């Protein structure tokens, strides 16, 4: 597969080194659990932008991603993966964050299209965000404008691989750890009143 289509986030390298140790120290049960969560993925496909047009073929007969155990669900509570498909305007971002907060862990985000990486063709728009990863934890970028369904499937496969092998530090862990950073970014754009509601104190939490 063309590696260039799949962009890891910028801390990929250091993460890989870090998780290598974890991978080796995994028990059999943990391995099995990883395998199961890689094998079964519930997706809430957030059609924020034009990338959404590529998702229906992926889920239906043409590309049939159900083969890989990927199923669409309606609500974030049930979902493991969120696809943010394209540019996020301020209005959409609020909902994206909200949806992200409501997913149960472990949760992953696939960002679809160039706009989520650097703004893409909306790079100078006053109303869209440029980097999705400043606001939520992102696990997988599928670059392109528009990326083909095959690219999205490739993204899924890669994500499944890394979950199975436990080779990445998931975005949600980073989000919890650096919550102050993400929160500051969110507040800067959206103001205080739409802050997500978090019960637990992430800073003092023991990550496994």
């Amino acid at each position, binding site marked *: 597969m063309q590696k260039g289509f799949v962009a890891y986030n910028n801390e990929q390298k250091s993460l890989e080194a870090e998780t290598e140790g974890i991978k080796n120290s995994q028990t059999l049960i943990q391995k099995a659990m990883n395998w*199961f969560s890689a094998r079964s993925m*519930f997706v809430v496909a957030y059609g924020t932008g034009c990338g959404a047009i590529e998702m229906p073929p992926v889920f239906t007969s043409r590309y*049939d991603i*159900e083969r890989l*155990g990927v*199923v669409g669900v309606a*609500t974030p*509570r049930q979902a493991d993966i969120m696809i943010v498909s394209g540019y996020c305007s301020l209005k959409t971002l609020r909902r994206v964050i909200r949806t992200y907060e409501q997913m*149960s862990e472990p949760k992953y985000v696939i960002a679809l299209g160039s706009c989520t990486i650097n703004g893409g063709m909306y790079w100078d728009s006053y109303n869209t965000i440029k980097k999705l990863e400043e606001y939520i934890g992102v696990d997988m970028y599928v670059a392109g404008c528009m990326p083909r369904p095959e690219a999205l499937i490739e993204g899924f496969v890669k994500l499944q691989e890394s979950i199975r092998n436990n080779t990445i530090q998931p975005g949600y862990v980073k989000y919890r750890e650096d919550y102050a950073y993400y929160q500051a970014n969110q507040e800067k754009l959206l103001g205080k009143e739409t802050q997500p509601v978090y019960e637990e104190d992430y800073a003092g939490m023991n990550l496994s």
Partner: protein
Amino acid sequence: MFIDLLIMLVMAYGFGFLYYGLYRNISARVHGRFGPSLAQSFYDSIKLFTKDTSTDFGWMFFAGPIIMASGAILTVLFIPYFNHGERLVGLSPYGNLIVVLYFMVLGPLGNALGVGSHGNPFGAMGITRGLTRLLGLEMPFYIAVVGLMIANESADIGTIMANQAETYNIIAHPLLFIAAFISFLGFLGKSPFDVVGAPQEVYSGPAVEFGGKFLALALSQSAIFSFAKLLLMVDLFLGGADSLWDLILKTFVLFVASVFVGNVYGRFTTAQSVDFLLKVPTVIAIVGLLFV
């Protein structure tokens, strides 16, 4: 005894998921795709059970799925698997058909309490749709069952099974079977009676706030429950099963029949489905009842 119960439970769980996987596969073939692996539902369930977090809205929300699962399991345990009355009869000597019919609504009602407690209107809407649909579903099914009970002079499932040694009820009372089968489709929650959890309209309906272990339990109970319903239909209309293979064959046939119907039709709205169920199968069932 307890081993029997355990076997029944495990069989229901296994067959339930297997059939569900099968359903997804067959649907996929009907749609012209490959579909997931047969064990996909099982994977889903394991994954959901092992998720790190799940949102919990309070003790009633916590208890809701548990009650629902208890209801489903209870239903299975009160339905005998085989018609020779020795092994895998579970608790059926302590209950009867009427009790089983009521167990079938116990779980949903407990679930309804849990769903209501999280305050999401979509959940309540889904529950309302479910209970409304239940009106339509139960009418023909109950009439059919009443017909059988009157014909056999007994409310005991074992007796009804034993009385079918010569002719199955599907042949003796075909109209009752048709009526019961139509509402059985609805009980399985497949098209065209799947309005309850319609994701596009009510955002998954009752399951809207269920994540992680709650969803896992909901899925598992639905698998067990589906098998229980299959079993009930087999016991009532197909003379029960003599052996394991017989059991698998009969439930499979019934299941496949329902899957094909489910794949051909679109979705009824709540009002349409109740209207349909109160008209067509109910009338068939009443005619069947008059013949008893």
